[in-house]
C-alpha cells in the first residue's frame, strides 16, 4: 500500500529557493544584469541562473520529493539522499555563478570554474532525478500527471547536460566549430529544455492533480490532457532534433524551432482550456487564496508563450524575447510556485503538528494556520510587480523595470514572513498555540515510531 510521509528535506529546499529568489529580485532592483547590461553579460547570466536553478528548480524538486508519491501512489526510495542532492546543487550553483563572475575577472575569480559548477549541478540534478524516478518506474501505467513529470525530469537532464557544454564553451574548452554552433543556438535550446521542458511540463502535470484536489473538481479525462502531453513531447522532440543538428554540423534549424514553438503553443492552449474547465467545474464556491493567486500565473503562461512565439516568427527577438521569458519565469512559474507554497507550507506544518492528534483532540483546519487577508495584498503586489517589470522591459525603461523588480522583492519578503508565521504556528487561534512548534526548515530530529 503506498504511503506518503512528510518529506524531511522539502522545507530546506524551499528555504534555499526563496533565498535565491530574493537575491535575484534584489539584484535586478539594484540594476544588476539585463536590461542595464547585455542579455549574455555575466551579471545577466548570474541573475538568470539564480532564478532558474536556485529558485525555480529547487522549488520544483522540493515539491516533487513530497508530492510525487502522492501523484503516483508509489513510494519514493532513497529520500535520505535529498540533502546530498541539495548540497551538490547549492555548491554547483555557487561555483557556476562564481564562474560567470570570472568571465569578467571580478574578485579574482576565473571562468575555469564554470565546467566544474556545471558538472556539480549535473551530478545534483542526476541524483535528484534518480530518487524521483523510483516512484515512476514499475509495472503499472502511470497516471497522467506523473507522465508529465517523467518527461520533465528527462528534460531536466537534457538542460543540465547542455548547460555543461555551454559552460565548457564559455571556459574555452571546446573546439571552434562546436563553440560557434553552441553560441548561436545552444542558449535558446538550453532555455527551451529548462524553462519549457523541465519546469513548465512539471508544473502543468502537478497542477492537473493539485487543481482537481483543491478545487474539488473532477479530474480532466479524455483526449485533451493526453494531447497536451503529446504536443509537449512533440515540441521537445523537435528541440532535440534541432540540438542534434547543432551538435553535428552547426546548422541552424529554424524549421525545427518553429515546429517546437507551434507544438508548445498547441499544448498551452489546450492546457489553459483544461485549467479553465477545472475552475468552472469546481464544487468549492469560494476560492482559497492559493487558488486565487494562481490565476494571474495561469494567465501569464499563454501571454508569455504568445509573446515568445511572436518574437520568434517576427524576428523581434531582441526586444520581445526577454519580456516573454521574464513573464514565463517570474509570472507563470514563479507566481504559481509562490501561490502553491502558500498552501504547501501550511499543509506540511499542519500534517507535522496535528496528524498525531487527529481524532484524539480537536485539531485546527489547515486554513487556520494562515491569514489569507494578510497575504492577499502581497500576492497582488507581486503580480503587479511582474506586470510593471515586464512592461518596462518592453518600453525600455530600466528604472521602471528596477522598481517593478523591487516591488516583487518586497512582496516575496512579506510572503516569506507569512510562511515563517505558519511554521511558528503564530497565526493559530490561542487554544492551539501552546503546542510544540516544529523546526523552521530542518527535519524533525526523530521520526515518529511506526508500530
Amino acid at each position, binding site marked *: *500500500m*503506498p*504511503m506518503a510521509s512528510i518529506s524531511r528535506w522539502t522545507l530546506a529546499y524551499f528555504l534555499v529557493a526563496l533565498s535565491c529568489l530574493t537575491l535575484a529580485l534584489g539584484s535586478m532592483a539594484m540594476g544588476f544584469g539585463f536590461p542595464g547590461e547585455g542579455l549574455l553579460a555575466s551579471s545577466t547570466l548570474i541573475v538568470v541562473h539564480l532564478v532558474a536553478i536556485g529558485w525555480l528548480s529547487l522549488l520544483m524538486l522540493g515539491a516533487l520529493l513530497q508530492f510525487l508519491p502522492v501523484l503516483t501512489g508509489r513510494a519514493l526510495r532513497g529520500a535520505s539522499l535529498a540533502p546530498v542532492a541539495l548540497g551538490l546543487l547549492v555548491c554547483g550553483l555557487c561555483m557556476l555563478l562564481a564562474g560567470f563572475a570570472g568571465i569578467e575577472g571580478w574578485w579574482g575569480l576565473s571562468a575555469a570554474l564554470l565546467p566544474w559548477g556545471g558538472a556539480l549541478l549535473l551530478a545534483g540534478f542526476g541524483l535528484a532525478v534518480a530518487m524521483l524516478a523510483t516512484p515512476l518506474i514499475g509495472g503499472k501505467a502511470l497516471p497522467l500527471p506523473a507522465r508529465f513529470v517523467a518527461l520533465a525530469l528527462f528534460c531536466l537532464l537534457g538542460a543540465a547536460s547542455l548547460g555543461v557544454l555551454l559552460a565548457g564553451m564559455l571556459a574555452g574548452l571546446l573546439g571552434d566549430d562546436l563553440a560557434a554552433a553552441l553560441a548561436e543556438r545552444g542558449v535558446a535550446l538550453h532555455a527551451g529544455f529548462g524553462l519549457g521542458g523541465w519546469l513548465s511540463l512539471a508544473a502543468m502535470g502537478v497542477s492537473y492533480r493539485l487543481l482537481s484536489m483543491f478545487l474539488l473538481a*473532477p*479530474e480532466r479525462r479524455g483526449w485533451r490532457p493526453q494531447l497536451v502531453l503529446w504536443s509537449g513531447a512533440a515540441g521537445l522532440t523537435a528541440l532535440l532534433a534541432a540540438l542534434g543538428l547543432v551538435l553535428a554540423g552547426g546548422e541552424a534549424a529554424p524549421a525545427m524551432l518553429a515546429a517546437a514553438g507551434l507544438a508548445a503553443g498547441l499544448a498551452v492552449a489546450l492546457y489553459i482550456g483544461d485549467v479553465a474547465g477545472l475552475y468552472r467545474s469546481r464544487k468549492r464556491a469560494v476560492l482559497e487564496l492559493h487558488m486565487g493567486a494562481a490565476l494571474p500565473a495561469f494567465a501569464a503562461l499563454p501571454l508569455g508563450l504568445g509573446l515568445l512565439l511572436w518574437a520568434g516568427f517576427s524576428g523581434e527577438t531582441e526586444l520581445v524575447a526577454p519580456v516573454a521569458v521574464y513573464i514565463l519565469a517570474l509570472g507563470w512559474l514563479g507566481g504559481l510556485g509562490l501561490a502553491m507554497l502558500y498552501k504547501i507550507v501550511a499543509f506540511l506544518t499542519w500534517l507535522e503538528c496535528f496528524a498525531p492528534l487527529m481524532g484524539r483532540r480537536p485539531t485546527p483546519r489547515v486554513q487556520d494556520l494562515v491569514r489569507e487577508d494578510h497575504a492577499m495584498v502581497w500576492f497582488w503586489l507581486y503580480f503587479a510587480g511582474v506586470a510593471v517589470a515586464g512592461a518596462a522591459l518592453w518600453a525600455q525603461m530600466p528604472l521602471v523595470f528596477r522598481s517593478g523588480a523591487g516591488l516583487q522583492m518586497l512582496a516575496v519578503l512579506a510572503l516569506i514572513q507569512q510562511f515563517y508565521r505558519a511554521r511558528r504556528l503564530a497565526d493559530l487561534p490561542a487554544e492551539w498555540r501552546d503546542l510544540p512548534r516544529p523546526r523552521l526548515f530542518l527535519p524533525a530530529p526523530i521520526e515518529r515510531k*511506526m508500530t
Partner: protein
Amino acid sequence: MTDLELDVRPLLRNGGEPFGAIMAAVGSLAPGQRLKLFATFRPEPLLAVMASKGFSHEATPLDGGEWQVIFTPEGEDITSPAVASDPEKWPDPSYYIDCTEMDPPEPMVRILAQLEAMAEGEVAFALLGREPVFLFPELQARGAGWVGDFDATGENYRLMVRAGRKP
C-alpha cells in the same frame, strides 16, 4: 472430530481461577474443533468472551447446580492476528463515511476521528475522491489495518479501516 474436554470443577472447588486454563484450551483447539467445558456454575462472563472470539455456545444444566457448556467455533475470532491481516475475514463495516465532497485533509480528520471511536475489530468504510496516501502512515502508527482500491470508473477510492488494539 472429538470435542476437547476441559473440567474446571476441581479447580473451582479449590478456590482456583480457571480462566487461564480455559484460554489455553481454546488456544489448543484444532480448526473446527469444539470445546466441552464443565463448571460449577453457568460461566456468564466467559460466554461473552467466547462470543467475541467467534464461538457459539450451548449450556446444559447438570445435577447439583453444575453446568456443561459446549463451545462451537462459528465465525472467525475478530481479534486474532490472522483476521487482522486478512480483510476477507473482517466483519461488515459498522460505519460509513462519504468523503468525496471534502477537500484535503478533511477526509483524513474524519476517518481518524471515527477510528478513535471504534472498538478493536470494528470496521469503517470510507469513500474518497483520491487515494489518501497521507492517512496510511497515521493508520499504521495507530495499529489499524486497512485495505483500499479505486472503483471501476477510477473516480472514487474505497477504503476499509479496521481498528486495532488500543495502546
